[in-house]
C-alpha cells in the first residue's frame, strides 16, 4: 500500500465528524505525483478520501501540524507536525454518486487518500443536467466547473457576503447573466433591488430598468408604487404616522374603508364586493379626497353646533356671499373657513368642529407627505393616481405586468439616491405588493409556485438590521420564512452580515462567502451556516478577489470556487469616487481645476434631482433637425 501515490496517512482518532489523521513518513515531502499531476499534501481546505468498504467518505482538511495533535498525545509528540484534522462532509459510492451526510464513520487505521482531479470531477461534476448553472470553476483546479443547483438556489434563499471590493456584485451579475442567457430559461423571473444603481449598465441587454425620475432616453421606466395597494398598517406608517388612540385609529379606518367603498361603487372591480371590502383590500381610493374630507370634519369651522357634516362647513365668503376658496384636494390646499364666532350678535354663528376624532396632528403629517415631492412615487403614481372619485387610469395588473411579466428576465429597480427613511418604506411596500400578488395567485400559471421569482436584495444591511421593525425588514422576514412554499426566493447581499437580523440570515440555505476581513462578520456567517465547517470558514480572510466559499443546499459539497466574471462591459459599475485617476477619466484629484459653478450645485440641491438642466438631449435634437 505504501506504493499507492495517493495515500496520505491513517485515521488515528474519531470524534463525531472530526477525524485526526497521522501522516505517513513518505508524505512528508509535501508533494505527490499522480498521473503526472502534482498535488500538494496537507493543504488546509483541500479534500481527502477515506475508503470504507464500498463507500468513500470525503472530508475537508481543517488543521495541519502541531495543533492538530490530539490533546492527550501532545506531550509525547514533541514534533507533532505529522498530524492533520479533517471534517467529514459526505460520502460517495464507487459508482460516482455523491451525497451529503454520513452513514458510517471511519475507524482507527483506515487509510486516508488525497483527492485527485478524477475524484473531484466525480464529486462536483454534474454538467449533464441543465438545472445546474456554472458560475465559475473550482479554485483548486480550473478544469472543474463550479455548479450550483438553481432549484435550491432560487427558492431556498441565499446570501452573498464579503467585504467591499471582493466581487460580490460581479458574482451576482455573473450569476444573473448566466441565468438570463437567451434561450436557457425562457420564463426566468428575477427582480433586483439595486440600492446603488450598479447593475443597470451591467445588465442592459437582459434587464428592464425602473427608476424614480426615470430617464426615458435610456429606456428606463418610472418606478411607481401606488399607495392604495398597501395594507392599512403600512399606509398608516407612511401617511398619518403613529396614531396611538384606538378611537382615532378607528375613525381613520372608517374613513379609508368608506372612501374605498365609494370608489368601488363607482367602478366595480372583480374579486371584491361591497360586503367583502375592508380597510386592507387593495382597491383604489383617493387619499387626497380622504384628506380633504377629514380636514373639513376635523379642522374646519361649521355653521351649526350639532349634527355637523360636510354641508355645514363655514366656508369664508366675500361681500357678495360667494365662497372664496373651497380648497383643492389634489393640490392638498385646505379650504378657507370663517373664524369661530359664537357671540350673540354674530350672524351667522360659526362653531368649532365638534369631531370626536383627535387627529389634527396626524392629518397635518398626511398633508405634509402628500405635498412632499420625494413621495411622489407613492402618492402621485402616474397612471395609477386615482382622481378625486378614486378611479385611476390603470389598475394593479398593469403594474404587475411591468414588474413581473416583461420580455426580459431581469427587472432592475434602481433605488439609488433615495433618502434612507423613504427607502425602507419603499422596499417594504414593493416587496409586499409582489409577495401578496404571487401568494394569492399561487395556483395560477402566473403565480410564484409555478413560476418562481428570485428577489435580489443589494446592500441588505441597510434595511434588514437586527432590531429593524421597518416595513422592509418585515417584508423580507415574511419572504424568507414563508416564501419557499410559494416560490418567492430571496438573495441577500451584504458587506456587513453582522448587521443583518439573524433570523433572516439563518433562513438562507446557500452561502456565497467572499473575502471577509472582519472577525465579527465571519463568526456571524459561520454561525448561520448549518454545516460543521469552521475549518473552511477560517479561510475567509485570505480568499482572493472573486473567490468564494460556497456552502449549502445549492451545492453538493462545500466548495471554494473562483467566480467567472462577466465580460468587462457587462460588469457592475461600483462607481466608487476616484481620488487618484489612473485611466485618464474625467474625475480625480490629479487634474487641473476647471471653472466651477456652485449656483448649479444649489439648483440641483433644491430640485432634489442630480440631473443637470444643461444636459443636451442629442436624440431630441436630431429629431428637431429632421
Amino acid at each position, binding site marked *: 500500500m505504501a506504493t499507492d501515490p495517493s495515500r496520505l496517512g491513517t485515521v488515528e482518532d474519531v470524534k463525531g465528524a472530526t477525524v485526526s489523521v497521522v501522516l505517513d513518513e513518505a508524505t512528508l515531502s509535501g508533494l505527490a505525483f499522480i498521473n503526472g499531476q502534482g498535488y500538494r499534501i496537507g493543504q488546509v481546505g483541500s479534500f481527502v478520501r477515506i475508503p470504507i468498504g464500498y463507500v468513500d467518505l470525503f472530508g475537508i482538511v481543517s488543521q495541519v501540524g502541531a495543533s492538530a495533535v490530539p490533546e492527550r498525545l501532545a506531550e509525547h509528540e514533541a514534533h507533532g507536525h505529522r498530524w492533520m484534522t479533517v471534517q467529514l462532509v459526505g460520502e460517495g459510492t464507487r459508482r460516482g454518486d455523491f451525497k451529503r451526510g454520513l452513514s458510517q464513520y471511519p475507524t482507527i487505521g483506515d487509510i486516508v487518500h488525497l483527492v485527485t482531479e478524477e475524484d473531484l470531477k466525480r464529486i462536483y461534476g454534474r454538467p449533464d443536467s441543465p438545472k445546474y448553472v456554472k458560475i465559475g470553476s473550482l479554485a483548486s483546479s480550473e478544469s472543474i466547473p463550479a455548479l450550483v443547483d438553481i432549484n435550491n438556489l432560487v427558492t431556498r434563499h441565499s446570501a452573498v457576503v464579503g467585504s467591499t471590493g471582493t466581487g460580490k456584485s460581479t458574482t451576482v451579475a455573473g450569476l444573473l447573466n448566466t441565468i438570463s442567457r437567451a434561450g436557457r430559461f425562457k420564463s426566468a423571473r428575477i427582480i433586483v433591488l439595486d440600492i446603488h444603481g450598479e447593475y443597470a*449598465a451591467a445588465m442592459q441587454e437582459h434587464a428592464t430598468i425602473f427608476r424614480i425620475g426615470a430617464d426615458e432616453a435610456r429606456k428606463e421606466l418610472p418606478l411607481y408604487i401606488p399607495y392604495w395597494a398597501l395594507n392599512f398598517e403600512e399606509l398608516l406608517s407612511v401617511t398619518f404616522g403613529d396614531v396611538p388612540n384606538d378611537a382615532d385609529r378607528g375613525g381613520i379606518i372608517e374613513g379609508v374603508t368608506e372612501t374605498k367603498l365609494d370608489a368601488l361603487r363607482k367602478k366595480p372591480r372583480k374579486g371584491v364586493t361591497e360586503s367583502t371590502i375592508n380597510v386592507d383590500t387593495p382597491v383604489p381610493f383617493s387619499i387626497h379626497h380622504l384628506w380633504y374630507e377629514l380636514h373639513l370634519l376635523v379642522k374646519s369651522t361649521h355653521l351649526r353646533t350639532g349634527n355637523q357634516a360636510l354641508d355645514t362647513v363655514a366656508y369664508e365668503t366675500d361681500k357678495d356671499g360667494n365662497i372664496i376658496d373651497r380648497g383643492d384636494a389634489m393640490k392638498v390646499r385646505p379650504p378657507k373657513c370663517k373664524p369661530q364666532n359664537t357671540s350673540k350678535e354674530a350672524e351667522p354663528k360659526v362653531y368649532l368642529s365638534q369631531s370626536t376624532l383627535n387627529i389634527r396632528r396626524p392629518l397635518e403629517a398626511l398633508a405634509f407627505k402628500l405635498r412632499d415631492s420625494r413621495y411622489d412615487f407613492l402618492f402621485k403614481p402616474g397612471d395609477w393616481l386615482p382622481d378625486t372619485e378614486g378611479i385611476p387610469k390603470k389598475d394593479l395588473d398593469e403594474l404587475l405586468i411591468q414588474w413581473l411579466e416583461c420580455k426580459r428576465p431581469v427587472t432592475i429597480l434602481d433605488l439609488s439616491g433615495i433618502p434612507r427613511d423613504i427607502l425602507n418604506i419603499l422596499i417594504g411596500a414593493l416587496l409586499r405588493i409582489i409577495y401578496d400578488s404571487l401568494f394569492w395567485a399561487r395556483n395560477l400559471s402566473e403565480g410564484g409556485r409555478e413560476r418562481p421569482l428570485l428577489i435580489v436584495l443589494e446592500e441588505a444591511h441597510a434595511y434588514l438590521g437586527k432590531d429593524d421593525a421597518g416595513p422592509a425588514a418585515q417584508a423580507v422576514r415574511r419572504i424568507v420564512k414563508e416564501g419557499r412554499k410559494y416560490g418567492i426566493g430571496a438573495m441577500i447581499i451584504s458587506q456587513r452580515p453582522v448587521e443583518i437580523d439573524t433570523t433572516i440570515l439563518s433562513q438562507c440555505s446557500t452561502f456565497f462567502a467572499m473575502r471577509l476581513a472582519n472577525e465579527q462578520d465571519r463568526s456571524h456567517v459561520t454561525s448561520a451556516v448549518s454545516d460543521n465547517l469552521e475549518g473552511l470558514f477560517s479561510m475567509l480572510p485570505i480568499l482572493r478577489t472573486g473567490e468564494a466559499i460556497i456552502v449549502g443546499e445549492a451545492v453538493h459539497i462545500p466548495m471554494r470556487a473562483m467566480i467567472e466574471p462577466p465580460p468587462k*462591459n457587462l460588469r457592475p459599475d461600483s462607481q466608487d469616487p476616484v481620488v487618484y485617476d489612473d485611466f485618464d477619466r*474625467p474625475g480625480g484629484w490629479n487634474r487641473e481645476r476647471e*471653472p466651477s459653478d456652485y449656483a448649479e450645485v444649489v439648483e440641483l440641491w433644491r430640485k432634489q434631482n442630480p440631473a443637470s438642466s444643461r444636459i443636451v438631449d442629442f436624440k431630441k435634437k436630431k429629431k428637431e433637425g429632421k
Partner: protein
Amino acid sequence: MNWVQVASSNLSRVRYDEKTNTLEIEFHGGRVYQYFDVPLHVYEGLITADSHGKFFGDQIKGHYRFTRV
C-alpha cells in the same frame, strides 16, 4: 450631431452640439459625460488629434465643467 467613433484606449465615441457647445464623450465601459462650453475648435482638435486620449487629458480634462449623464 451623430456619434463619432474614436480609436482610443480610453474614449469610445464623442459627439458635439454646436448650439450649446456641449461635448458628449462615451468612455469604454459605457460611462457617458457631457462637457459644457467647449469651443468648436477644441472639439475639432479632439477628433483630429493623433492621440484622442492624450488630447482629452491635456486640453479638456480640467478645463471645462462636466456632468455625468
